[in-house]
């Protein structure tokens, strides 16, 4: 147990970038534990201690062999066929019973687990097997879990931006024209500016978004132009 604690304390975030490539190739379980941010590391250690002590033991053994070998072992990963394995991944889907926290399912942990699985598979594509079909569907995670995790932080950010822009624009217009906030809302021009400001905050989050939007608009009509090219000749004739 103490050696496993030492193992984890050695994999502080400063080591993570160098540690991850070799760890991924050998120990499917490792990425899940070593790649978590440090504050969660001790939490996960506790989890494995409570759960399967066997998992920790296995890691220690593999730990020593991993340190011995360096780059050469990476070469025969393809033959080894390092598959994605995780105790919580049962019969081609995440076993929700293993994600219980305080009696309810910890959806954040499910999302984290799926993220790691996809990242693993992107870097190490696997053969699809009929005997072990993957049937996981992201829609089993309820909509409010997605909202809480992804939408709310971004909504907070955007609303904050909108509020800041709004406050200073209202002050600026008031100082220039003397028209107060309530009277500004009644003016058509101000309403238009407000609409533009809200749309701008929603659509343009980074500088690249402006180009992306232009490209998207071009894309939607590109195929049409290709089909209609043959009719352009007729117009000229």
């Amino acid at each position, binding site marked *: 147990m103490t050696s496993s604690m030492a193992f984890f304390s050695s994999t502080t975030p400063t080591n993570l970038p160098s540690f991850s490539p070799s760890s991924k190739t050998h120990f499917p379980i490792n990425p899940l534990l070593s790649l978590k941010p440090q504050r969660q590391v001790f939490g996960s250690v506790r989890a494995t201690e409570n759960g399967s002590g066997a998992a920790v033991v296995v890691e220690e053994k593999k730990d020593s062999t991993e340190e011995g070998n360096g780059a050469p072992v990476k070469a025969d990963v393809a033959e080894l066929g390092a598959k994605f394995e995780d105790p919580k991944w049962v019969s081609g889907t995440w076993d929700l019973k293993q994600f219980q926290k305080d009696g309810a399912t910890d959806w954040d942990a499910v999302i984290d687990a799926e993220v790691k699985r996809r990242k693993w*598979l992107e870097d190490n594509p696997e053969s*699809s097997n009929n005997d072990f079909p993957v049937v996981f569907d992201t829609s089993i995670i309820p909509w409010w879990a997605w909202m809480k995790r992804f939408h709310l932080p971004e909504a907070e950010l955007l609303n904050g931006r909108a509020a800041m822009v709004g406050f200073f624009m209202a002050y600026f217009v008031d100082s220039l024209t003397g028209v107060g906030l309530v009277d500004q809302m009644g003016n058509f021009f101000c309403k238009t500016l407000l609409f533009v400001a809200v749309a701008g905050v929603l659509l343009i989050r980074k500088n690249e978004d402006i180009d992306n939007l232009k490209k998207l608009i071009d894309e939607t009509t590109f195929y049409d132009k290709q089909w209609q090219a*043959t009719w352009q000749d007729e117009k000229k004739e």
Partner: protein
Amino acid sequence: MASITLKSFIGLRQSSLENHHSTITLPSKPLQYLRHNIIASKSSPKITGRNLRVAVIGGGPAGGAAAETLAKGGIETILIERKMDNAKPCGGAIPLCMVGEFDLPLDIIDRRVTKMKMISPSNVAVDIGRTLKPHEYIGMVRREVLDAYLRDRARDAGATIVNGLFVKMDKPIDKYAPYVVHYNAYDGKAGSTGTKMTMEVDAIIGADGANSRVAKSIDAGDYEYAIAFQERIKIPDDKMVYYENLAEMYVGDDVSPDFYGWVFPKCDHVAVGTGTVTHKPDIKKFQLATRLRARDKIQGGKIIRVEAHPIPEHPRPRRLSNRVALVGDAAGYVTKCSGEGIYFAAKSGRMCAEAIVAGSENGTRMVDESDLRNYLQKWDKTYWPTYKVLDILQKVFYRSNPAREAFVEMCADEYVQKMTFDSYLYKTVVPGNPLDDLKLAVNTIGSLVRANALRNEMAKI
């Protein structure tokens, strides 16, 4: 995410911006012109002493269908094909409606695919085909069998089949003068360069495929094309049972950045392949990845043939010039998303031939460009929705791995399966129930949002 660099597409004319805006209001414009042109063709001269002569260059599905329809319409038809026993590299899938529309005998079809499996980048596998009725299937054919059958039927209808290679054509010197077609006649002798021959015809249908010479002769312009690479693998019998009537589609960045990898069952082996438009030099890498993803199911298989072919991505800028029209792959009638071309080749060949038969009043009058434009107009009107929908599907769902994950998730839905198969098998875009469509739209957006959210998390690792 695949970055899409768009070359400015202005066809062949260096047109100004005004023309661009005018083309967007397309549906009304050609009709205006057509009204003038219909009058013009009625005044084209009657041919005395002989029937209209039409050369069909290329003897694939498009050429065979065109030649048969022309011959049945009483037109003197000559079909030129360079390789009579050509086993064209091809997926070989034909929709159910083709069997009915072209009266194909059922023994041409090697296999009836009634189930498909879509496999996402993270190996989520979804079976589709539950909604198929017992008589519905996707037919898998061998191109050499299908092409030969259509050519033979054209010959039986009265067309002359010539084994030769089209070299070039001489444009007519005045309005109703004939085209002179130069070709090398092989006459069944393999390996020879053939004897140079010429023939005079009044109209030409270019059905000579993706690398069409006819298209080059009329300056039809180029198209973007995908490279489809395929290995035919003979797998052990017990593994073949799984592919009895099932085809697989693998999606993922490893398999193809803008297309999909496939395992299609053929007569006694499977075809494993993939394709790409934007990353052609990496095609071998994609093929290895496809074989890896299917590895457990094709283990122990032997590669019996390796083949590749270009597949057009969109129609050529000019599909018709004076009395020469392009059909099939030569015109670029391959759908996006699925890469389907056989049915559209045959149908366009038939449609073009029908337009010539009608415009020439069964071979008694000369045809001119307006008659051939009728074919283009009918084609665009009938199939534009199908092409556009598939284009949208490709743009939305083949963009990136999250989009592909969402795609596979959506395919699990019964409504999606029903709509997909209905539109694939019968080639009509069915509107469907608006309430279900709304639910589908909401679910699609949900899937896309979830998959993209997961991918953003992946980027943080």
